[in-house]
């Protein structure tokens, strides 16, 4: 077996080991690559930065445990920014798994900021129905969520006084890993009710949403852990997103090197085959 064939047929366990090392080593020994902020994340930050103190922002936690490492850091960064600005988040989830993550993010960020439940933030919990819940919110928030996540009637929560529907919410932010998620929020909250919508999503799904960004249907977007790291850079509070960027950088470079090696072996083999055919 020639060297080229050996390289081409390399055991996949070796590839897995190299990738594992490319991720683990930078996590253990951080390099701290500088993070450049992309326009889509900057726009989202600017929108929230320009909201008047006391505004209410609806944040929907529409992701599950599998995408938690990518999207949870975004939720932390967004909540920290909102609490720092005095903006009041109204939390909800269209995915049942989203709510425990919201609770954890709130537990950390509200303790840091010294915020009080019911006055500075509220958690409405999970509601089944997806796009229909979004439509119902446009008519009456209280009809869609008669109680918060802990069974308190909405009418008894000070923050919710005067919040009837989208008209009383400054903006919607969707942290989404699929359906129901950003496209549905764009379609209903933005398209039908004219509300500004921003979002965060996994890196693999981000390219789908660039059409919404260009059309102005999304005011900003965080894509994957990089998006979270960029937002952390903007609020000057490095956390989980930034911590993962070194590993992601190195992993990307390693994958690119794999692609290049794979193609070199492909072209060498093709050239050899061509020569053999010429001889025969």
């Amino acid at each position: 077996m020639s060297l080229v064939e050996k390289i081409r047929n390399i055991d996949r366990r070796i590839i897995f080991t190299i990738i594992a090392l490319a991720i683990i080593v930078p996590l253990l020994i951080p390099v701290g690559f500088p993070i450049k902020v992309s326009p889509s994340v900057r726009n989202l930050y600017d929108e929230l930065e320009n909201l008047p103190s006391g505004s209410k922002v609806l944040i929907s936690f529409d992701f599950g445990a599998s995408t938690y490492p990518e999207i949870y850091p975004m939720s932390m960064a967004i909540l920290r920014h909102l609490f720092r600005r005095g903006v009041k988040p109204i939390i909800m989830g269209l995915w049942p798994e989203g709510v425990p993550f919201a609770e954890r993010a709130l537990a950390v960020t509200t303790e840091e900021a010294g915020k009080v439940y019911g006055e500075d933030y509220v958690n409405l919990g999970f509601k089944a129905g997806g796009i229909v819940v979004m439509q119902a919110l446009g008519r009456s928030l209280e009809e869609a969520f008669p109680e918060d996540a802990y069974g308190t009637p909405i009418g008894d929560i000070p923050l919710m006084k005067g919040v009837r529907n989208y008209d009383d919410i400054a903006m919607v932010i969707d942290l989404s890993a699929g359906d129901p998620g950003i496209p549905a929020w764009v379609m209903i909250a933005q398209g039908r009710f004219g509300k500004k919508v921003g979002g965060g999503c996994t890196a693999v799904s981000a390219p789908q949403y660039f059409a919404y960004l260009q059309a102005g249907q999304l005011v900003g977007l965080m894509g994957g852990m990089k998006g979270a790291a960029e937002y952390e850079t903007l609020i000057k509070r490095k956390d989980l997103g930034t911590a993962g960027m070194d590993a992601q950088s190195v992993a990307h470079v390693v994958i690119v090197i794999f692609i290049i090696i794979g193609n070199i072996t492909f072209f060498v083999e093709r050239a050899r085959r061509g020569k053999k055919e010429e001889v025969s």
Partner: protein
Amino acid sequence: MKRQIPLIITFLAGLAMILGYFIPHEPFGGLQQMLNTWYMVVAAFAMILGVGNLIKLHTIKIRKRKQGFGYSFVLLAGLAAMALFGIFRGIKPGTAFYWMWWNMHVPMSSTMFSLLAFFVASASYRAFRARNIEAALLLVAGILVMIGRVPIGDMVWSGFPAIANWIMNVPNTAGQRAILIGISLGVVSTSLRLLLGIERTYLAGD
């Protein structure tokens, strides 16, 4: 009648939703809201149906000793443990459900998703080849986006992020927009077929 009644219900419900969308005033707005509320209730019950179906499917797999039936056993045991602890001991911090959620379910689900990195690396090494011009274009675009979207790309050459952004904003968006328009037209035509009773596959057995 067995076939016509569901068709009439579908037509009327669909019509009410369409009218409610374009004319949000009474009586259409209220009708749409009522149907939305019904949908939320049905959606909640659909989750129960989903769990029931999952249990049925895996029970059959175990009973018939199909390949990989051991995994079905683990799934059912996990489902039962989470459900029973959740129902009888609650889901608040400090409970067994809470512990299992954060220390078993979340890490395992995240691990499954993170395996993607390993498969992407292996697959790109073996299959991502510049066999023709189209494949070469895709490969170059993929490499530029991968490098341009991480901080190390900017360190190597400040032009990488700009190129990656251009690829995402221009060719990618053009393609995505075309796909979106195609999907939307498909949704509209399928919806019309359903409302008009042309598409009847949802009537199981008919």
